[in-house]
């Protein structure tokens, strides 16, 4: 807890940095924002009188200097007001909440599936070191790490949707729509976690206390399940949390590959239609989520391992 509190000022600075980077990105992006807002408010109109544009510029402080605009925007963000989407004139927050579910479903399904397989593979590899099982697990995780997920997605569509016709290829809706995207993302989770779990378990299995247990005559399977696994869990949980950002990124690519609705499609759509409030909110959301989850993971690690409480944080 003390460790966590000591990191709060740094955390606050990072959150401030994130907001500044996000604002800079939108401030320098090309296009007239007043015209975009006018388009959003009066979708039937084609041309807008200069007075109207001027009024909008005044309303949204578009002619103020960079720092003032940033402060206006940041003040609104702090009050929880993220603005209206240019595209639909509804609150950015509501649109976000509406799309969050699909992405969370996809991510959690894949995480569960991938972890289960990774766990199985890593356990087999560690209990039979040096055998073909071990080598196969390592090879599978190397291939998985190099696999472009969009390509794997297309291959799965080709095999299971086009040729076999078992699952629908594109879209959202039924649980059947979830199968292929979840498999695609789960393969990536499996690849990255098998490798990590295997090395954590190997490290735990080589600890001196394992030898002591063995000398006491405790069976190999009891050593593995009761002691080695428990020992390997802490770094594993931390790594899973740290890899959360990659999971979200993976989910976004997979969503776009399978034309699923969710945060990925929302981001791509709002970027292409220059819906600045939506883009800014999403970019900020991903960055803040990453920072918060990472800090929690670090705190967890610190709580479980006294050595990290004083150690300088490394890569």
């Amino acid at each position, binding site marked *: 807890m003390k460790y966590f509190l000591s990191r709060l000022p*740094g955390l606050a*600075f*990072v959150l*401030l*940095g*994130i907001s*500044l*980077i996000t604002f800079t*990105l*939108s401030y320098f*992006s*090309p296009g007239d924002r007043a015209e975009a807002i006018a388009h959003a408010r009066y979708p039937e109109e084609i041309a807008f009188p200069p007075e109207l544009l001027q009024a909008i510029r005044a309303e949204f402080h578009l002619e103020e200097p960079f720092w003032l605009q940033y402060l206006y925007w940041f003040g609104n963000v702090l009050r929880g007001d993220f603005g209206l989407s240019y595209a639909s004139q509804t609150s950015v927050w509501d649109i976000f909440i509406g799309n969050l579910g699909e992405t969370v479903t996809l991510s959690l399904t894949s995480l569960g599936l991938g972890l289960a397989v990774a766990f199985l593979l890593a356990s087999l590899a560690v209990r039979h070191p040096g055998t073909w099982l071990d080598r196969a697990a390592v090879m599978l995780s*190397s*291939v998985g*790490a*190099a*696999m*472009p*997920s*969009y*390509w794997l997605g*297309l*291959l799965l*569509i*080709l095999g299971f949707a*086009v040729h076999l016709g078992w699952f629908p290829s594109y879209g959202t809706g039924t649980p059947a729509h979830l199968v292929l995207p979840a498999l695609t993302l789960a393969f990536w989770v499996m690849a990255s976690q098998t490798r990590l779990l295997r090395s954590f378990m190997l490290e735990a299995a080589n600890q001196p206390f394992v030898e002591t247990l063995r000398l006491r005559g405790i069976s190999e399977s009891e050593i593995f399940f009761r002691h080695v696994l428990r020992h390997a869990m802490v770094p594993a949980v931390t790594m899973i949390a740290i890899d959360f*950002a*990659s999971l*979200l*990124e993976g989910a*976004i*690519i997979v969503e*776009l*590959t399978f034309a699923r609705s969710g945060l990925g499609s929302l*981001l*791509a759509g709002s*970027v*292409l239609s*220059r819906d*600045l409030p939506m*883009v800014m909110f*999403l*970019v900020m959301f*991903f*960055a*803040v989520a*990453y*920072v918060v989850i990472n800090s929690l993971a670090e705190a967890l690690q610190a709580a479980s391992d006294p050595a990290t409480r004083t150690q*300088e944080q*490394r*890569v």
Partner: protein
Amino acid sequence: MSEVLLQKGAKLPDSPLSRFKRRTGLVLAVLALGLCIGLWLTPYQPAQADFLNRLAPPEPAHWFGTDHLGRDIGTRLLYGAFWSLGLALVVSLAGLIAGTLVGLLAARSGSFPDALLMRVTDSFFAFPELIAAVAFAGLFGPSTVNLVVALSLVSWMKFARLARSLGLTIGERDFVIQARLNGLTDWLILWRHILPNVLPSLLVLWTSSWSRTILAVSGLSFLGFGVQPPTAEWGAMLLDGKPYMQTAPHIMIFPGLAVLVSVLAINLAGDRLRDVLAQTR
């Protein structure tokens, strides 16, 4: 050490590092030669359309078949290597150089500037690579240049963190203190003593950064946010081939395979380099 061994008349032991360098050099030379021979031998141009021979499956005249415009896929894959691997190389090198500079500067500059630089690094680090690239490339217009700029902006932070932590450790070693006492300037110490010691670990990180960036470049191009068709980038080729998946799956299979094999090869080389460096230490 080596002199002692030579005096005894023993052969110099072949260090794992020099063996690694020789083998990597050989593999790279063979690959580069293969690429050049392929480009020299192929009778086609990457943008040369042949409407009488569209969507042809692999055959003697077109080893990898042709795409929806009758362009030779094999030729496009060869040219695509320059785009997919080359752009990722540029981005990862930019990240390596910028990150190393920031990290070593932070390590050298004392507590307050160090903390400031590292919090800035953390702020950039928070933006997931792909999301930042989609937002940047989308808002500023999808193009090759914007893709490279966007990915470079979010590629340097890992290097900065590693360079800083290595720089801090090495800065306290005896030979650096000795050099400082001997009156060497900061730049000379950095160049002669610190950089050679931090570079190997940074290079291991760089190989993984390069392969990750290859996936990002081709992925973003596939999603329409990167290199635009008709340029023969592998991800853009996949995008081209997607509508013809059912009738001519080879259009999308080969570019994806090219990405997979390149990334796998770079990752394995990086793993090997890490093992070799761990042995030599």
